[in-house]
């Protein structure tokens, strides 16, 4: 007997809905769990004082600074390189064996475990170039780690700008570069920003690469060649060495809030840009 489409639809909607509820529930559970344990620790003092006794007590000021500096450096390096590469691939090359090879390589790099980038950064920046465990080594290694993500997401965004827009632009006497600047990039912006925000998120939450390349100093850095520690690393060390679970959760809560702020402000800026254009 054939089941009526009405009932199969109800079954399908129930299963799909259950999957969504389950996923969202797990996410909410994790966030609430961390915030519940971490928020009581969070205070102005916690954020803006130096840690004492290896982090068993005191605040996370140097860690806050490290957590801002490393991703910022990574994005400053990776965003222009990544967006530039994707513009070049989509707009200035024709599909050929070489572009397919580049794309395949990028995909492979995107799938490489981050600790490999950490190892590379350790050997190349820390040792060979002699930068030591430093913000510079860490930022550059993180940049390399997020580069494939940025390239692929911006490439998709640029490719999804309708071909007709480009054709109109060319027909009005625009060069390829003018077309990219005036039509392609403004319309690809939401996707490009998504890629960059993903990159920021990945570098904020990264531990392996940072331990290998930026070290884990608890001092406030005074130059880009000082070692530093990010919240993710701090959390890892506090929990792993059993120094202070309270401070670990406090750091974790700060990290979650930091990621939230980055995402919200990025999307807010993007919406303002889109609203201004229309």
């Amino acid at each position: 007997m054939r089941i009526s489409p009405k009932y199969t639809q109800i079954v399908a909607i129930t299963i799909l809905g259950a999957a969504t509820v389950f996923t969202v529930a797990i996410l909410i559970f994790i966030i609430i769990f961390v915030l519940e344990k971490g928020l009581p620790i969070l205070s102005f003092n916690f954020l803006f004082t130096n840690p004492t006794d290896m982090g068993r007590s005191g605040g996370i000021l140097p860690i806050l600074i490290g957590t801002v500096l490393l991703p910022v450096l990574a994005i400053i390096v990776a965003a222009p390189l990544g967006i530039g590469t994707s513009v070049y691939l989509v707009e200035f090359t024709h599909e050929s064996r070489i572009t397919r090879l580049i794309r395949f390589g990028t995909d492979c790099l995107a799938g490489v475990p981050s600790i490999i980038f950490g190892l590379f950064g350790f050997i190349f920046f820390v040792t060979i170039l002699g930068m030591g465990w430093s913000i510079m080594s860490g930022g550059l290694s993180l940049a390399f780690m997020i580069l494939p993500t940025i390239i692929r997401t911006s490439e998709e965004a640029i490719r999804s700008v309708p071909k007709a827009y480009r054709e109109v632009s060319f027909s009005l006497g625009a060069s390829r570069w003018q077309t990219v600047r005036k039509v392609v990039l403004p319309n690809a912006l939401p996707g490009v920003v998504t890629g960059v925000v993903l990159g920021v998120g990945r570098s904020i939450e990264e531990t392996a690469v940072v331990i290998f390349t930026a070290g884990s100093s608890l001092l406030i850095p005074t130059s880009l060649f000082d070692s530093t520690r990010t919240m993710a690393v701090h959390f890892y060390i506090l929990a792993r060495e059993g120094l202070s679970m309270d401070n670990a959760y406090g750091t974790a809560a700060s990290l979650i809030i930091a990621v939230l702020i980055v995402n919200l402000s990025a999307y807010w800026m993007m919406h303002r840009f889109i609203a201004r254009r229309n």
Partner: protein
Amino acid sequence: MTQEKNIKIDTRHLNLYFHEEKILKDINLEITSNQILGIIGPAGSGKTTFLRSLNRMNELEPGWRVEGQILLDEIDIYNSELDVISLRKRVGIVFALPVALPMSIYENVVYGVRLSGIKDKARLDEIVEKSLSAAFLWDEVKDRLNLSGLRLSGGQQQRLCLARVLAMEPDVILLDEPCSGLDPISTTWIEDALTELKKNYTIILVTNNTMQAARVADKTAFFLMGELVEVGLTRQIFTTPVKKETNDYITGRFG
């Protein structure tokens, strides 16, 4: 006034290949200035390809090869110092599907002239009003020039596309089935605009609507399977065509 002086575009033994498949076969066509040339023919006859070869739009895709000559004011557009960007500023095109760029009506119209480096606000305002008026759109949009071009109806967008081309003050306007997606009233707007515009421009109109060619074109060319079958005064083509194929197509026996 000799015939020679009035020729705006002259194609000589034009052959066009796409991945070595011959799309246009030995096209010899003289296009008179300040007239509307209608190009008719069934789908796949090469009329759009021909149109797009006149401002080198075909070559945006790889795989095209051109033989022969296309002369614009006696200068070969494929083999001369004339670069493709200045060519496209002199030979504007309106596509079959109206495509407003995702920016304001105002910015759509001045897109081309801004690229040419005109920045003076008063001058741009003047260009916007003049071009939109010539495209019979000014009265409908004059109070909302900052509205996104995407918010306009299809017929309005197509007139916006025409205004955008007019803003550049080209010599030649190419139109690729500009009314194919439009309602009869919008079609009338466009046709009226074209009849008015031919005083100052040379217009080439590819159309699937044979009656549209009969209504607005001074001369009509009939394309079939990549060949130019016949070209002549519109009245002559529609009343006493020389070739049997032309007659068959016009009377609706195929196509």
